[in-house]
């Protein structure tokens, strides 16, 4: 019997490894090797074409990124954070309200689809559509402002409003997926909790803050972490809407600068160093978020 058992276990182990083979292979090829390669590149100077032209430069790339007055720290990293914070705050709070309200309405699916519309659309289309909405001469937003007798805004052409304009689009874009995850979380809360509380005469707000919100914490954690990480990484919107992060560097974010360094200027070493700095930042931020939530009583996965 014992013999059979261990045989069974061995069979299971074998199957387990077999089932995981594609995953192991994938991570070896598209995770570990690139990670090491990219780490190595970050200490070199390389134009990207010929491996024999790689030149080891030690910490030079990193030193250059952190030198006094480096545009990478200010404004690029600053913009990256502002963008991520801005989009997350915007989309999260709106999504929290919307997901809660939607569950109380008829035709829930219809409403949810409306809010999810931007998420299923390619960012290329989103960026282009908003470029037109923001158009200073004949865009709809300025037309409305004019009708209301207000000062028109130059949005993407003015460095003081450009980043904010992109944040609005990023936030708008992110509402849908957050709504989806939060509504899934809301649905998982058993109805009788609410009913019990209602019977005890709790008001809607009390109900929401005392029962719904705490039970929703895992979903909230998930939404915040994923969208914040997404926000720190994302640069497609900047690429599509401003091409190069202009005017000046006012909408330039880490990912975009890295992309340009590698493929425009041929500074693959600098680009890799940037990628690692951004990675460390994202990693630290994620750990911080997890810690904050753990203290708040949410067990993570």
């Amino acid at each position, binding site marked *: 019997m014992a013999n059979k058992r261990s045989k069974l276990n061995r069979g299971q182990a074998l199957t387990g490894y077999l089932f995981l083979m594609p995953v192991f292979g994938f991570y070896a090829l598209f995770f570990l090797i690139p990670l090491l390669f990219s780490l190595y590149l970050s200490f070199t100077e390389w134009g990207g074409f010929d491996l024999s032209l790689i030149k080891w430069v030690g910490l030079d790339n990193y030193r250059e990124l952190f030198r006094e007055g480096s545009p990478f720290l200010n404004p690029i990293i600053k913009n990256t954070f502002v963008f991520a914070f801005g989009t997350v705050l915007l989309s999260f709070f709106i999504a929290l309200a919307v997901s809660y309200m939607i569950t109380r309405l008829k035709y829930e699916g219809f409403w949810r689809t409306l809010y999810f519309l931007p998420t299923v659309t390619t*960012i290329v289309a989103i960026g282009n559509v908003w470029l037109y909405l923001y158009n200073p001469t004949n865009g709809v937003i300025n037309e409305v402002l004019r009708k209301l007798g207000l000062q028109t805004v130059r949005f993407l052409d003015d460095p003081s409003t450009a980043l904010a304009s992109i944040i609005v689009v990023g936030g708008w874009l992110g509402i849908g997926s957050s709504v989806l995850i939060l509504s899934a979380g809301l649905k998982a809360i058993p109805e009788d909790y609410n009913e019990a509380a209602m019977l005890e005469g709790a008001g809607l707000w009390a109900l929401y803050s005392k029962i719904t919100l705490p039970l929703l914490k895992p979903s909230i954690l998930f939404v915040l972490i994923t969208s914040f990480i997404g926000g720190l990484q994302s640069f497609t919107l900047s690429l599509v809407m401003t091409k190069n992060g202009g005017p000046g560097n006012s909408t330039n974010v880490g990912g975009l600068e890295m992309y340009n360094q590698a493929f425009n200027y041929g500074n693959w070493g600098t680009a890799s160093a940037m990628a690692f700095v951004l990675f460390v930042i994202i990693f630290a931020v994620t750990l911080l978020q997890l810690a904050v939530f753990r203290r708040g009583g949410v067990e993570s996965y």
Partner: protein
Amino acid sequence: MKPRRFPWFSYTVIVLGGFLMVFPFLDMLASSFKGPADYNRMHYAFLPEQFLLDNYGTAFEKLKLGLLFRNSIIKSVATTVLVLLTSSLAGYALTKLRFRGRQLTFRFILATMMFPGFLFLIPNFYIMVHFPLVGGNDLFGEGGDGGMAQYRLALILPFAVSAFGIFLMRQFILTINDAYIEAARIDGASELRIFFQLILPMTVPALATLAIFEFIGSWNEFIWSLLMYTVNTELATLPVGIQQLKSHLDASMTQPLVNAAMVISTVPILLVFIFLQKYYIRGLTNTGLKE
């Protein structure tokens, strides 16, 4: 339970908000029927002066839409199928099969989610174009022209496994009672058989969620496809094609054309979502992003 009051407030907010969500799309649709002069006139107007259908015809022609659609569909379908397969296999192994290093593997997979995609953009690009024995490359990945980027596979491979997908499937399969599996084992069913005939059918709701998620994601994916396109223009997907159309033409004169192209590329994915969203939500709820 007492009847709830009609939620006026919620309706107002949701409808107004919904309008803000939809308006840009309506604007995109309306502008796709405008002529260049109409589009560029000094003051904004929502409706076209006259509805021109020509933009759609021209967009079809200029965009090589056949190629773009074929590439986008192959990329999205293949990525989705691969992710479903690898995620469910891994999800099952990580929950119902006992072997050394199981927990470690799971933690590793979770940890990979923290690594931003752009960290891999540059090295993966290099790996793909220097893939050994592919596209004219020798054993050391040298000497070819384009390597993997000669094939559509280059659009798919880097997305074949998804940490999120594995996580989702694992969480779902955890909820399946071990008793079923034990019973099947005692009946002498092989692990493969158990997986394909017992487990997979039970995970359909989670698979549906994941499928929609992946399909939408890869349909809209842009940066990697753009990179592959710069190596091999035959690999253009819809988002890349639209962006290129935009920059090839005098933007001020042809934006309506671009709008038409965007409408064409958005409609299919929208339909996919509208028809399947019920399953999507259900799957999300069941997999419990809680735990």
